[in-house]
């Protein structure tokens, strides 16, 4: 059964003109959020009346971790022990009904206004923010390492599954290692190289370590790497912006 919802990304809006947005800052062991709502006085009133609350949930599936906080204030700070999480964490902002409540129909879209009452159960997510991750997908995939054995300007890429899921170690000659944090071109080149290695996955049966990456591909709509028209360069540059070098004529 469904009830009215407002999605931050606009894919669902059962309120006529309402808009939800939020500012999120994430640091080691702490997240800050400021929820913002426009043209939804009825929703704001629910919070003021204590019938709904702003929420912020943090999850780290790698460590089976989840913590959440709800508040009548639109600004929330949530803390956790950094050792409880590993690598990427995901943030879920929103507003939740904390008791069964009746929504004021005048702000809702026409289809809901036709109902006699619009009763929403306790726990229903009235407002749903975009899911945020603590790291850009591709930066969580690559680890850069200086390799003194490589000649000037050289790069090598190898796979690392010791954490349980697939990552890539990008070994860089010392001269280019020094610039890697600021050089987008090098970073994208490394991503292209890493994705290029996927094409040569040697297994007949599905490899569980690759499932996380497969999910990312699906989410982004990338061509699967085992298909003949998979292009590592195109995929990488769809994923991360490539900064061209501008030459003086």
């Amino acid at each position, binding site marked *: 059964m469904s009830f009215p*919802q407002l999605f931050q990304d606009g894919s669902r809006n059962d309120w006529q003109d309402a808009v939800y947005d939020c500012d999120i800052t994430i640091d080691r062991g702490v997240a800050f959020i400021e929820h913002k709502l426009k043209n939804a006085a009825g929703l704001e009133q629910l919070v003021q009346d204590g019938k709904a609350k702003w*929420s912020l*949930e943090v*999850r780290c*599936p*790698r*460590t*089976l*971790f*989840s913590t*959440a906080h709800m508040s009548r204030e639109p600004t929330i700070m949530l803390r956790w022990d*950094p*050792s*409880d*999480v*590993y690598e990427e964490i*995901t943030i879920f902002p929103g507003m*939740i009904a*904390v*008791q069964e409540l009746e929504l004021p129909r005048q702000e809702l879209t026409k289809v809901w206004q036709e109902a006699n009452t619009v009763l929403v*159960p*306790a*726990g*229903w*997510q009235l407002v*749903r923010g975009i*899911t945020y991750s603590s790291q850009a997908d591709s930066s969580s995939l690559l*680890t850069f*390492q200086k390799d003194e054995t490589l000649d000037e300007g050289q790069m090598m890429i*190898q*796979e*690392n*599954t*010791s*954490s*349980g*899921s697939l*990552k890539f*170690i990008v*070994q860089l000659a010392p001269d280019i290692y020094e610039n890697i944090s600021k050089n987008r071109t090098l970073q994208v080149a490394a991503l292209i190289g890493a994705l290029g290695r996927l094409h040569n996955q*040697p*297994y*007949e049966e599905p*490899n*569980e*370590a*690759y*499932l*996380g990456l497969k*999910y990312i591909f699906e989410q982004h709509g990338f061509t699967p790497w085992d298909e003949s028209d998979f292009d590592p360069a195109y995929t990488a540059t769809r994923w991360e912006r490539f900064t061209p070098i501008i030459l003086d004529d």
Partner: protein
Amino acid sequence: MLEPIEPSVGIAFTNWQRDLIRKDEGLLERQEAMLQALERGPEPFCNYLEEHLAIGSYRNSPKLSLHRELTLNEVSNPPVELERELYELWEHELTPNEACLPIYWYIMHTAWIRSLWFGSDLVKTFVHTSRSASDPMENQVDDRARSVMRRVGGLVEERGKVSVFSDCPMARAWWRRRISISVAEYSEGTLTADQAHIALHKKSAVWEPLVLNSLRRVTVVNNPRIRAAIVAHIASVDSIVSSGKICTRLVQDVARRCQFFTPQTWQDAMELVNSSAASVQAKAGESTNEDND
């Protein structure tokens, strides 16, 4: 805490596991080399692991303590009491961001094996195979090699992130006790940590679906109240004991129902899980009837 894992160790780990399952001409020889090191005993096997995983530099690093030598049965399938003891022993030494890493458990096992905490017959300890003597020899060897890798710290190339939670008995012990404590905290008196632990341990068909669905996606099943309700339901029924498939469907059905809904009270969470379970059981019953027809 252990010092950070060097990238070179990660590369060595990946290449080693792939070498031991990649189907090419040299596979049998590589697998037999590993098994022979195991058969020769603790020191040769530890040297083998240190060489192939490049973890020699961790030999003097802080290790998780073991308070006594463990019996074969205890290592193979730690009983609830031992799982609790291990968790309490390691409570201040081990953190989740270490315990989720397969390579971490390989480093720990190398130290424990060398210290003879697992005795000297490593084959009996780490080789659990379902192959019969009539199976082709290469299949038997393959099964034995995979068994060792799963039990020492996880076979990532085959089982991904779940392997360390589900296949490595020592890691599984820690995680299972940790989740049991969380369940007790969020179940509002319905279950103690020991009761939750017994449920997760005895009804082992539920552990993997619970963990797998938590690891593979950023899933709502990680919500501690929802997870506690699932475990509380499992503890209260007998029918779910043997069916991993039904457990999986239950976990997935709960996740689906909670996509836009967060139970606000313990009672709401239990009602949701019980309703899910009834639906899953009903569908399972219909499916059985159709098969019989």
